[in-house]
């Protein structure tokens, strides 16, 4: 490790998130620190990052099941009610030849949340095992998770707009079904999970491991 690659941690220093004041970490304790200038909590790393991320990932995984098993939308048209889960919607579009739409829905609603959960789980496990394997790629994966996460909300937005717009009485009515709530929960919780994960841990572990 070259001299230029010294972290704040290695220098026994921490910077305040709020006011940017660089503080020296006192001997014997890295927790419960407060910025002497603005009073904000000071952390060398995001506090309990692993624990929080684990909790959120597990919560998201729990919500992911009902999100896919329950219908997300009920279309009532001419008195004929039809409930669709995410996958049945995808299958519907595939069977009707709307491949692009099917790909979009599948990517945004099935693939991305699943990928996020998988990446976060992988990162958590690899960090927990103090792996020093390819920290650059793993950081890149984390950034991808952060960036892509919000796009999963597309489905929820579509449902929201449809429910608000399609109010044609007996002709056609669209209502959100319980699956949508769970799906929204999955997306939001994974966003928080990605947020709570501190990518610097990847480097800490790889640094200590090496």
């Amino acid at each position, binding site marked *: 490790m070259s001299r230029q690659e010294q972290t704040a941690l290695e220098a026994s220093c921490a910077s305040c998130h709020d006011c940017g004041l660089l*503080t020296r970490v006192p001997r014997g304790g890295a927790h419960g620190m*407060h910025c002497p200038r603005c009073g904000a909590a000071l952390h060398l790393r995001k506090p309990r990052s692993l*624990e929080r991320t684990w909790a959120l990932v597990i*919560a998201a995984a729990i919500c992911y099941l009902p999100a896919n098993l*329950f219908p997300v939308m009920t279309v009532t048209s001419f*008195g004929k009610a039809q409930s669709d889960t995410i996958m049945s919607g995808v299958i519907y579009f595939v069977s009707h030849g709307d491949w692009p739409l099917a790909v979009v829905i599948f990517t945004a609603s099935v693939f991305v949340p699943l990928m996020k959960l998988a990446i976060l789980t992988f990162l958590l496990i690899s960090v927990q095992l103090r792996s020093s394997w390819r920290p650059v790629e793993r950081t890149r994966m984390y950034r991808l998770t952060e960036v892509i996460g919000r796009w999963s909300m597309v489905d929820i937005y579509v449902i929201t707009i449809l429910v608000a717009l399609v109010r044609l009485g007996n002709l056609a009515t669209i209502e959100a079904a319980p699956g949508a709530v769970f799906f929204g*929960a999955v997306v939001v919780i994974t966003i928080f999970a990605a947020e*709570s994960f501190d990518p610097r841990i990847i480097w800490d572990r790889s640094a200590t491991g090496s």
Partner: protein
Amino acid sequence: MTQHGPGRDGFEDVAEAEIAERQRLSVVWIIPLVALLVGAFVAWRVLSARGPEITISFKSAEGLEAGKTKVKYKDVEVGLIEDVSLEKDLSGVVCRARMVAGAENYLRSDTRFWIVKPRVAGGQVSGLGTLLSGAYVGMDPVVSGKREHSFIGLEIPPIVTLHEAGRYFVLHSTRAGSIDVGTPVFFRKISVGQVVSSELDATDDFVTTRIFVRAPFDARVHTDSRFWNASGFNATVSPDGVTIDTESVISILVGGIAFEARDGSGAPLAEPETVFTLFESREAADRPNYTRTVAFLVQFDQSVRGLNVGAPVEFRGIEIGEVTSVKLEFDPKRVRFRVPVTIEIEPERIAGMPLAERRDHAALDRLVAGGLRAQLKSGNLLTGQLVIALDMHKDAPPAKVLWSGAMPELPTLPTPLEEITASLTQLVERLSKVPVEKIGSDLSASLAALRVTLVKSEGLGPALTNTLQQAERTLASTDALIGPDSSVNSELRRALLELSEAARALGLAAEQFQTQPSSVIFGKEGNQ
């Protein structure tokens, strides 16, 4: 961190961080806990809302969609068809349905399922709502009986659901007529019920028709109510002419059963499942029901064309029974054809009838001795229908009741028409007795004699000619004598003129006489 001690790298004046108590467990674990609780709650709710799984087999899955088609009772969703698959032997389809929780109480061996779809039957249209919403499976729940999870779906919706108020009755008839499941039941031409089933009795003796009469009309069915087949229009050709009767336009199209209570009868209400007789027609139902019948045999040697089973037996024009069978028999011993006609007389129709006892020999013998005879009579000249007429014929040739057979045989008399035929036959027979041949031979003999006379008279010819010539001459001379140009004629004319002159003069003289009678004596006054 301890290895990086303070005072290193010139950070001596950096502020000390404060250290607070460390938390044991992060609150963030509440989130997965809440997610788990909510997930578990939802899963529990879904699982607890899941009722029993049942299978229903249908002949065809027309209109059924796995995962979409619902099972409904009174339009309330009680289940969902989850899977539709073919039966192993391809004889039908098996639907797997997931019922709602609590539905197991209604899944008994009598519970019925059927597919509700638009249907036009029995004069009514049903299931129109399914045109838009798609077919659904109807259910008729039952709360008692054995629990069941496998059902055979009905092909046609049941006419009556088990919870409908009303009563079932059973009708017996010899023929089904145009009665089918769904055929309406009329009371005073109002549709009050429907036929639920119509099938042959186990013994094949009659057709058993079960009907359902809705409340409150079921209170109109009394023990003495009469049911009749009001199918289509009933055209009866009877000796009275043609009668056409119909209950309603619907009954013309789909048939019907009508019933009516006897007027003013205090008969009690009929119990459910009471068995009634279904009469062929309103006339048959209206006919007083005589319980006792006495059968007789009558034999006719003549044609019985126009005599049908059911033809009335009349006594002096009053119907007292009917013909029950008309047969043709061959008697090989006597080489004769016979037409034995069985008639049934309802003695209750005749006040004070001594025939009440079937084997009352003496009474019947007395009647026949008194001239009781059966006769074929034309009931309707137009249709040629025959009736059997009983009457007392005082001058009938003596006959006796034959008691030898299974039923007493009444003596018969030839029909009036037959009598005419018989007398005509007699006339022909008498005519045939006229000696036409003898008359012919006599006539030819006379003719021969005439011929001889004529031959003999041939010699008279020339003499006759002479006579004729002389006569002609005489006539010619007479003509000359009195012809228009003859002298006799002109003289005669002159004489006549003179005679008329004389007559005129005489007339004048007579006038003179009348006006001046004295002139006879004194002459004309003018001359004086």
